[in-house]
């Protein structure tokens, strides 16, 4: 069976473990702390950072195991000094625009860089699906973070469209 992979986010005081999070259509980064940001309406000014996004990748559907999960930027050229920063394992906090000191997201397929909750085996099992607060029938990665960084050298105007790829192995 083909799994469905979705990205779920938490914003403001809404934190993982206390609520279901919000379903999304994209991972757009911008100057507001909300879901499905329209970049043109909430642009990141040159020299600023976006609000960081905290969320999880959710795997729905029948499977025995998912492992070797890797996230990277597969398409979309950066402007000068523009970079998307990424961490595959973060602590719960309230999104803001402060520097999270995460490394730049890889631009080619890396080794596994997304934490999975089953730390004994590094694999995500169907049994790891969460029934409380009960928003999904699937299993999910650990908490993941994205943030866009620019400097005063970054050209003004719209950024190029970028694609974040998630590669995983399924049994």
């Amino acid at each position, binding site marked *: *069976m*083909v*799994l469905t*992979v*979705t*990205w779920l986010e938490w914003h403001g005081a809404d934190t993982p473990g206390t609520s279901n999070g919000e379903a999304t*259509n*994209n*991972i*757009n*980064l911008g100057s507001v702390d909300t879901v499905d940001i*329209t*970049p043109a309406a909430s642009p990141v000014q040159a020299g600023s950072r976006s609000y960081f996004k905290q969320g999880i990748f959710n795997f729905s559907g*029948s*499977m*025995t*195991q998912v492992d070797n999960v890797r996230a990277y*930027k*597969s398409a*979309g050229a950066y402007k000068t000094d523009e970079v*998307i920063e990424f961490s595959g394992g973060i602590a719960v906090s309230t999104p803001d625009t402060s520097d999270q000191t995460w490394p730049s997201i890889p631009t080619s397929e890396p080794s596994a860089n997304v934490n999975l909750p089953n730390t004994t085996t590094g694999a995500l099992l*169907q049994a790891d699906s969460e029934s409380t607060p009960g928003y999904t029938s699937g299993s999910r990665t650990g908490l993941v973070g*994205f943030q866009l960084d620019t400097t005063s050298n970054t050209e003004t105007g719209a*950024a*190029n*469209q*970028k*694609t*974040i*790829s*998630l*590669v*995983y*192995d*399924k*049994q």
Partner: protein
Amino acid sequence: MVSWHAMFNDKSRLEQYDKDGNEIPFGKVKERFKDLRSLSISQVERCMEKFYMVSLLDGMFHIDGRCMYLLDTNTYPLKELKNIRPIYFERWLQDFSATSGKPLQHKRLFTAIGFQCNFKGKNVKRYLEVYPSGDCKVRDK
């Protein structure tokens, strides 16, 4: 369309889909890894079915009707291969937009089938990456 098929030492079989079309989790095979005799996948591409099998008895591959060892049997004598275990997984790609739009493509990159074993204290593996086109590559890492 790709599906796996497992044969066990007692000649019993397990298929990914039962006669009613219900999917059997691969975990049912993993529960019987020690009794696994062979593991295979079939892939239907443009109405043509291709078949890839690995024997867990000696590490021989059957690739669309042709039998071959992917380990050099002079370097790795079959009698000295210990603890042969199957390798099987599907590698998938899901794209997300980070600047606009909705989730992008979600596709199977390849299905991996093969084995790993112990040889003189080292772990050795050989597996095929079987692509949706029907092409395959041999991997050892």
